[in-house]
């Protein structure tokens, strides 16, 4: 069927009372889970998987998808309010989003995050509807060597977005990658850097690190700077974005959507790398890059659009090829298989109900999420007015229990404490924490694909430059790095000249 009739067909399916209720439930659960630190959409979806047995295939996928992108919205909320990234992809929103909250623009930040996300969601839904199969073919052309360059691009993006010295940013990323190597090496089965501690055999999970580095370290820094009073956020000027705010956010949101969709499409990509890259691009092309990190609205609009676009675009390889780009999508495939459906290239023709129903529910889900989140802004802003001395112990306890809830082991709590101290050390020495998280997330995939690429080429490192996709992406990385290094070099030359 054509795209138009497909969408209408899909809307009819998605808009049945049952499916609407499931969509709403998924979005609600997803938002709640995204706001609460610790439990993420993956665990929630896993818990819901047995429930989906009693649902229709379309209903099951609709509910699970709702949880997935609902979590994106929820994660942004805590990122903006208390600089705690609920999701890996909200780490970047922490930077300018929280700064905006400190400037009294918390409501604006939350609203722009929601609006940018819904814009991205609608546009990506159209993209999926119109071009899923050909886009999936593009994803197929990527091989291990190309993934390595894509991931390198993500790391370079993390370097570019940092404010401080280039050397320190590269260092933090490498530290993140090294933390990612802790645990059991997949190909040899050897224990790496575990030092005989059983808790480290499975590696170090993202959540305790993020909680420690961002949540705890932020609290410590705040208390230190203000002798225990805590910074008081500026008075809230208005809850809604002004027309100017909307104008300034439009192009970043559109660019973010494009970048997010591109990364979501590629296996190994996804919301995190999409959000980081979108932020870096905005910072690079802005005429006033110094505003970034201090409350630039583009720094919220672009990554929020990107992470939502990536979340939805990652359905494309999943639905059309049956290739799950990440663990979440693998779970979706699991849900489909419970119902006896195997995703693949023919799914659009063989299961039009499923495909178009899911696509249409994405659009409905986005609308539901905006309707859920916008009125809540008033409530969230009230929360910000609580005096800090009451707020910070709450955050500490929330982080503690949340971290424990991931795998019900106290070792995660201790890891979080350790990273709280490490985050404090980093802050004191003027290192940035965000690139570390990027390194932690991308490191394992980088190593895995690097290993595969080398085994394909029999140890020849030139493979990264021989494959056209890989070579062009590496060229972009080099250009970005040089572009980031030039101003620093110029400044040094200037000071030498002055002396």
């Amino acid at each position: 069927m054509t795209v138009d009739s497909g969408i209408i067909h899909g809307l009819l399916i998605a808009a049945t009372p049952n499916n609407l209720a499931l969509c709403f439930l998924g979005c609600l659960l997803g938002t709640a889970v995204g706001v609460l630190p610790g439990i993420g959409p993956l665990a929630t979806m896993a818990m819901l998987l047995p429930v989906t047995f009693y649902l229709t295939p379309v209903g099951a996928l609709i509910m699970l998808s709702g949880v997935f992108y609902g979590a994106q919205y929820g994660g942004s909320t805590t990122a903006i309010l208390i600089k705690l990234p609920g999701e890996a992809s909200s780490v970047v929103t922490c930077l300018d989003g929280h700064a905006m909250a400190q400037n009294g623009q918390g409501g604006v930040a939350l609203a722009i995050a929601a609006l940018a996300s819904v814009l991205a969601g609608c546009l990506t839904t159209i993209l999926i509807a119109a071009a899923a199969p050909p886009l999936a073919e593009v994803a197929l052309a990527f091989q291990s060597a190309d993934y390595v360059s894509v991931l390198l691009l993500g790391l370079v993006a993390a370097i570019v977005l940092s404010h401080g010295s280039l050397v320190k940013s590269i260092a933090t990323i490498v530290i993140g990658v090294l933390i990612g190597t802790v645990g059991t090496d997949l190909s040899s089965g050897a224990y790496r850097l575990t030092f005989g501690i059983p808790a480290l055999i499975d590696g170090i999970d993202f959540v305790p690190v993020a909680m420690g580095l961002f949540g705890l370290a932020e609290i410590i820094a705040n208390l230190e700077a203000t002798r225990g009073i805590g910074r008081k956020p500026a008075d809230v000027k208005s809850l809604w974005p002004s027309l100017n705010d909307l104008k300034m956010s439009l192009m970043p949101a559109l660019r973010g959507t494009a970048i997010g969709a591109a990364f979501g499409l590629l296996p190994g990509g996804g919301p995190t790398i999409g959000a980081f890259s979108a932020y870096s691009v905005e910072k690079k092309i802005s005429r006033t890059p110094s505003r970034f990190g201090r409350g630039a609205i583009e720094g919220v609009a672009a990554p929020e659009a990107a992470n939502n676009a990536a979340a939805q675009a990652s359905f494309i390889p999943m639905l059309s090829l049956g290739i799950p780009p990440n663990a979440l999508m693998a779970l979706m495939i699991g849900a489909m298989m419970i119902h006896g459906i195997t995703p693949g290239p023919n799914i659009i023709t063989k299961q039009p109900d499923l495909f178009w129903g899911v696509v249409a529910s994405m659009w409905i889900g986005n609308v539901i999420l905006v309707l859920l989140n916008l009125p809540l802004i008033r409530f969230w802003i009230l929360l910000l007015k609580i005096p800090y001395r009451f707020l910070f112990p709450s955050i500490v306890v929330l982080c503690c229990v949340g971290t424990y809830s991931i795998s019900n082991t106290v070792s995660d709590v201790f890891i979080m404490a350790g990273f709280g101290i490490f985050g404090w050390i980093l802050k004191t020495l003027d290192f940035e924490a965000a690139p570390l998280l990027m390194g932690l997330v991308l490191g394992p995939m980088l190593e895995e694909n690097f290993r595969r690429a080398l085994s394909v080429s029999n140890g020849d490192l030139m493979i990264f430059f021989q494959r056209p996709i890989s070579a062009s992406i590496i060229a972009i990385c080099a250009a970005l790095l040089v572009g980031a290094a030039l101003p620093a070099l110029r400044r040094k030359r200037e000071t030498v000249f002055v002396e």
Partner: protein
Amino acid sequence: MPELADRMCSKDFLGGALLVALSVFVAFGVRDLEFHSDQGIGPAYFPLVGAGILLLLGVILCVGALLHGQDSIDIRHGIAPAVLITISVVLFGSLLDWVGLAFSSAVAVLVASAASRHMKPAERISLAVILTVLTVFIFGIFLALPVPIWPTWIATRS
């Protein structure tokens, strides 16, 4: 020479020293693993490459700090918040399996709130009570985490 000592206390020098220390630590940690294996790169490859990069960057930072002299490290407000918050979390983790969720949360809140010098005892206690109730309700009951809410030795007695 006091200038040299000053420069060694600078953020950049200490940062560089940290990086060097980390790279040595990692290299030590993977000393028994293979760099090249039969199937290609071994488990030590990535960590050692990373450690090498960190070493290089650390040296660059240290040398740069010694030559230029950057801002000094700034911990004039003391390390009390860092210590207290960390102790609070560590206590939570240590006590959780022993005295249950309720008491662990309460202790965590009380210790964390000590990091602020501006709370009256009544405020600290009421905050601890409220947060304990909320935590137990949300995580213990609503989300039904498999963690004991009360100390196990009280439960077995009744």
